[in-house]
């Protein structure tokens, strides 16, 4: 059995193991509907050109939109510099105020992003925290609101992937039988995950504990899922049958790898994980634990009262808080499923050992 990235692996996985995914389905529908609204607003005023894209991140991009979700977005610019881009970003911000909560004011969203720094500043002193975050999220959880065929967004995603891939000395394993895990990309994804975890502590410090509960819950589940999908995207290179069938072709291997990775990152993090579970979780144990937990998590976030409760919960009160204990139970089940898959599955364990630790 090999890995195949299908259009929608979640429904087949749910059917295969009789998974309850009602909250997942509803969140997907809400996200798609909200993105369509966003798209119509931008289209109505012709706010975009061939050199710009509105890119969304977060739950809106991951297909996990719940009540109270905000809209993390940026105006991505891949073309000539123009001071009017700032006016366009402000206009978008004003127009979407009626359908979305404002994005986090200290976050990396809601303004402009330039392609050059995303592609050129990978590592080194100019790769700021915000740049790393936007770059990795651009790969792992972003969508252009225009959908497929959006040139500026597609161009930049390919440009970033190409930067990681073109620096690898060899793309194949020593035996030349499969593609290797792209280490430069993998290391940046690992760095991003650790940065998110460190930033959690930093925000806790800076905001005096405000919003601790919800950020902690997200770190345990949705943020961890982004990392998992990045890890699996890298693992897919030695596993994907279609990619590895092209090894003997005279065509450029780096470009084949870029195209493969581009296909992977078109999927949401949950879809990437579902593809792997569909291919390799032969008992269904990991799938049941992971998807049941994630479905519950989205259900909690979609409850206005519970979401607000988590928003107000401080760390010092969490040990006795029944909702937080529920979050902990859900996240422990999610982690147990991940442990089963990454440390017990005979297809995935070797990759975890080789690339996941040192």
């Amino acid at each position: 059995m090999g890995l195949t990235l299908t259009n929608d692996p979640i429904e087949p996985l749910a059917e295969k193991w009789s998974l309850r995914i009602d909250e997942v389905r509803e969140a997907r529908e809400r996200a798609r509907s909200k993105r369509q609204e966003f798209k119509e607003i931008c289209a109505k005023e012709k706010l975009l050109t061939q050199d710009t894209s509105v890119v969304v991140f977060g739950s809106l991009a991951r297909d996990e939109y719940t009540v109270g979700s905000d809209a993390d977005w940026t105006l991505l610019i891949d073309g000539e510099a123009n001071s009017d881009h700032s006016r366009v970003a402000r206009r978008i911000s004003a127009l979407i105020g009626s359908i979305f909560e404002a994005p986090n004011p200290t976050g990396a969203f809601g303004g402009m992003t330039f392609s050059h720094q995303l592609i050129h500043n990978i590592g080194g002193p100019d790769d700021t925290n915000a740049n790393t975050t936007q770059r990795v999220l651009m790969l792992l959880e972003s969508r252009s609101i225009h959908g497929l065929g959006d040139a500026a967004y597609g161009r930049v995603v390919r440009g970033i992937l190409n930067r990681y891939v073109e620096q690898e000395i060899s793309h194949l394993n020593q035996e030349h039988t499969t593609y290797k895990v792209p280490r430069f990309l993998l290391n940046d994804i690992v760095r991003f995950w650790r940065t998110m975890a460190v930033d959690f502590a930093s925000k806790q410090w800076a905001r005096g504990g405000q919003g601790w509960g919800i950020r902690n819950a997200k770190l345990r589940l949705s943020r961890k899922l982004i990392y998992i999908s990045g890890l699996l995207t890298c693992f897919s290179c030695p596993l994907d049958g279609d990619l590895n069938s092209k090894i003997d072709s005279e065509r450029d291997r780096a470009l084949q790898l870029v195209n493969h990775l581009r296909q992977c990152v078109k999927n949401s993090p949950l879809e990437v994980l579902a593809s792997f579970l569909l291919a390799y979780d032969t008992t269904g144990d990991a799938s049941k634990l992971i998807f049941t937990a994630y479905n519950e998590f989205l259900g909690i976030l979609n409850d206005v009262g519970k979401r607000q409760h988590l928003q107000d919960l401080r760390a010092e009160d969490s040990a006795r808080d029944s909702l937080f204990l529920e979050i902990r139970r859900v996240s422990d089940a999610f982690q147990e499923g991940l442990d089963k898959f990454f440390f017990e599955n005979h297809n995935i364990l070797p990759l975890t050992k080789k690339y996941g630790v040192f």
Partner: protein
Amino acid sequence: MRPIGFSTGALAYSDYSAGLSIIRSHNLRCVELSALREGELEPLVNNLEALDLQGFDYISFHVPSKLKNLSEQAMIELLQPVTLRNWPLIVHPDVIERFDRWAAFGNLLFIENMDKRKPVGRTARELAMFFERLPDASLCLDMGHVRQVDPTMSVALEILERFGHKLRQLHVSEVNTNSQHDALSFETVLAFQKISSSIPETIPVILESRVPPDKVDEEVLRCRDALPVLIAA
């Protein structure tokens, strides 16, 4: 060695005779007769008999890229003398309104991929709808256009993986941010080299670089550098 020539329109704006004579003076054996602008079509077609095309091994014809005064049907009728010569017709996909009108050209209809300004025909996925409706049509891969759409050239590879069997001609040039065709830069040469091995040596290359006559040989050399031919070990 790859067969390389020029588009008449690149070397002499709206003056195909001048373009032809420049190309011939550089001993190039491939030419694309350009009627890119609507007004150029009728005079060129009416003068085909008189054109001195001796010495050219490969001749193609670029159909107007935009119609303002002519209807699609009227243009197709004007193209009759071209099709009688069995010359390939290079067509921008956004010119096609009714597929049935173009189907009769069979594999002499060369559909060209578009630059980033166009909403169609830029990627393999967007080209697929044209090749589904015109299954006999061929592909003219515009390397400058595809690099403008995606400088990594991974989109170009996708197009070749999917439609490489239809590839019959290349357009080669730099395409700048204003979507104009310029001389090849070092960056573009590097990009094109990435997919050179996917392009058979026999495919005719038509340069669209706007260069003065004294720079033609230099541009041809840069093109050979951009599309090296694999030497068997």
